[in-house]
């Protein structure tokens, strides 16, 4: 359940995660599947846009979850488990991406979920705008892209993002705002945001 707090931060109920972690540490490895299932899709959406390759993103995420499992005893419950997990997972993926310099195997990301929810015309329009958005995202500096992904794909609060990436809260806010402005001001090719901003 999400709780909206006064300064725009959001907080998951951490109790669920802590209960599961205790079960895992007591020997119930199957319980770890609950953790994976809870976080796998938003993390995958993020790692995919950093590596630009679905297979590589899957493999990196598998490795990251294994790493989290092996370091589970190090989680001291002082901060949110989500922040801790994301820090381990994102750092692992970023380290590998930077080392291997994933520049030459980018794949166009297919938005499969938009199919089957609307009329064909709307599906086409949404897919085209999604494609434009992905292109704009790919042009952003890595840190701005990552902050956008953590905020929108992973529903992280600014405080959580600040903890995960170990950067000041003010930087998170500034970078997010800057990134959003860039997406909106890419006027050269037109696109969704430009059109929307010129309405009314």
């Amino acid at each position, binding site marked *: 359940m999400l709780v909206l707090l006064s300064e*725009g931060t959001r907080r998951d109920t951490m109790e669920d995660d802590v209960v599961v972690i205790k079960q895992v540490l007591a020997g119930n490895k199957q319980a*770890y*599947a609950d953790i994976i299932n809870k976080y796998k899709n*938003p993390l995958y959406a993020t790692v995919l846009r950093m590596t630009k390759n679905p297979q590589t993103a899957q493999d990196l995420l598998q490795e990251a979850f*294994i790493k989290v499992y092996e370091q589970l005893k190090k989680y001291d419950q002082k901060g949110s488990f989500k922040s801790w997990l994301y820090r381990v997972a994102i750092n692992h993926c970023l380290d590998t991406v930077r080392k291997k310099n994933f520049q030459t195997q980018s794949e166009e990301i297919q938005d*499969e979920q938009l199919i089957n929810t609307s009329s064909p015309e709307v599906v086409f329009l949404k897919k085209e705008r999604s494609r434009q*958005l992905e292109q704009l995202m790919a042009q952003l500096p890595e840190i701005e892209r990552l902050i956008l992904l953590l905020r929108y794909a992973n529903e992280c609060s600014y405080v959580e993002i600040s903890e995960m990436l170990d950067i000041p809260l003010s930087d998170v806010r500034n970078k997010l*705002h800057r990134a959003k402005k860039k997406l909106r001001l890419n006027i050269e090719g037109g696109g969704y945001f430009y059109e929307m901003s010129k309405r009314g």
Partner: protein
Amino acid sequence: MKCPKEDKLLQFVDELLEQEEYEQVQKHIKSCLYCEQQVEVLKNEQAFLAETLKTPTLPDHFADLIVADLEPYKQRPKRKVKWALGAAASLLMATGISMSVSPTFAQFISGIFTSDSVDEGIQIAAKSEISKQLNMEVTDQGITLRLEDMIVDTSRIVVSYVVQDSNGNVLDPYFTSAEDKENKITLLDSAGKNIITDWGWRNADGHGVVEFSLIGIDSVDASTIQFDIAKIAGERGNWYLEAPFDLTKANELQKVVGIDDSYTLNGNKITLDEIRYATSSTEIVYETDLTDEARKALEADVNRKVKQFGTNIVNTFETYGPTIGYYIENEQGEVVSYTNVFAREDRGHMVSYNLLSGTNAPLDKFGSRVWTDSYSPKKGKENLYFVLDTVYETVPADFSVTFSTKDLPYTFDYNGHEMTVESIGNDVNDMFEEAVKEQRLQMKFQLSGYKEWKSNMLGKWAIEDNKGNIYEVHYSGTTYDETDDKGRFKFDNSLYTTVEVKEIPEEITLHLISETRVTELKEQWRVPLFK
């Protein structure tokens, strides 16, 4: 309150305003139709952003795949070594690290090299005689670059460092890549000549780790690593350090076992040369070659293809001849590492495990190469065996298909593949900087389909239009572990012409230029990696 500017409304929607200002804007919106509509637009944008960025998703069984290979937490957790996960070279640690060097002589390093932020080989080496503390630093612009520790092994030299400000805060250690001319990290020989200027880099918990591979480099004995840095943590300056090193101890500790055993299958010859047991890694050196008859036949096939399509299309970024997939097992038959195998029937593509790095180079004869694969070090005194699993042969292909570009999608079959040309259009290939800079419109094909397990791997393509013009293409593709209801693996390919093509022809012929055959062995070739 006057209508806030669009920038302010954006901050409002993104919850970036301070409480007081947020409430003021909120109050204004309730009484201003225009601003209410603007906010509605911005919220729709936000919803679209979230909707787009939350996809795609992983298959349902993703968690099960991971959990299946985990050990429960009754004891110190470790992964099972049989057919574990991961196509990317794994940097994760197996446990049970053993020390084989007397602590009396070992220089103990307590920094990042003993943590699990680095690979297992570095952890082992950090507790041995080939490691040393550097503790060298230089300060400029209020920023200090401090070299911490160094590991000097026959296979690689690894250095860790930190970057700190004047208050001792650790800063981002990121150097730009070896291709960047601003920051130079160079291995010099004793005469001061550059030997290696190419290095790998990673961030290990805020420490920078630079690694030089010495595989294939014979002339290094004792020398210096030179750090000549012009930009760190966003600041320009001048940080210069020289760290001397000596390979004498690493050479003493290394054990090389000559194997010199060969195996031939279908004209492909594999020779295991030697295995090098170094402190931080174990390397297997082997050669792949062809029999004279097979070489003659392959060369003739390639030359025929070159006459038809030209050498650029046939030979660029393609290596003809054999390669192998194999695994390394111990005396009990437990697999400890593998390279280029299909591992399990639910993997649609080759995978590797415990591989730190792999290099290869051509030898004198056509189709022959020497390979050096580097793995996490051998554990203790266990005896290891090399077991050949698969022989792969990259050969010219003989397949073409013609279709109308007005009649898409178009589906065809080839050699265990069912392929569909989904779309053809003009696009800028954003893999290449020049293409983006010039906004070069290249013809782009989107292919997708399904392939049978261990069917041939498709290689290079060429495109021909109805006027007989032939275009070289760049291609990239992925085979997934997802299957259809016939148990075939999904794949996607993108093909881009290398030159500008503004108009899409009415009819196109796709020519498959090369493919890699997959041959499983009928009898086992198992070679002891010890004398």
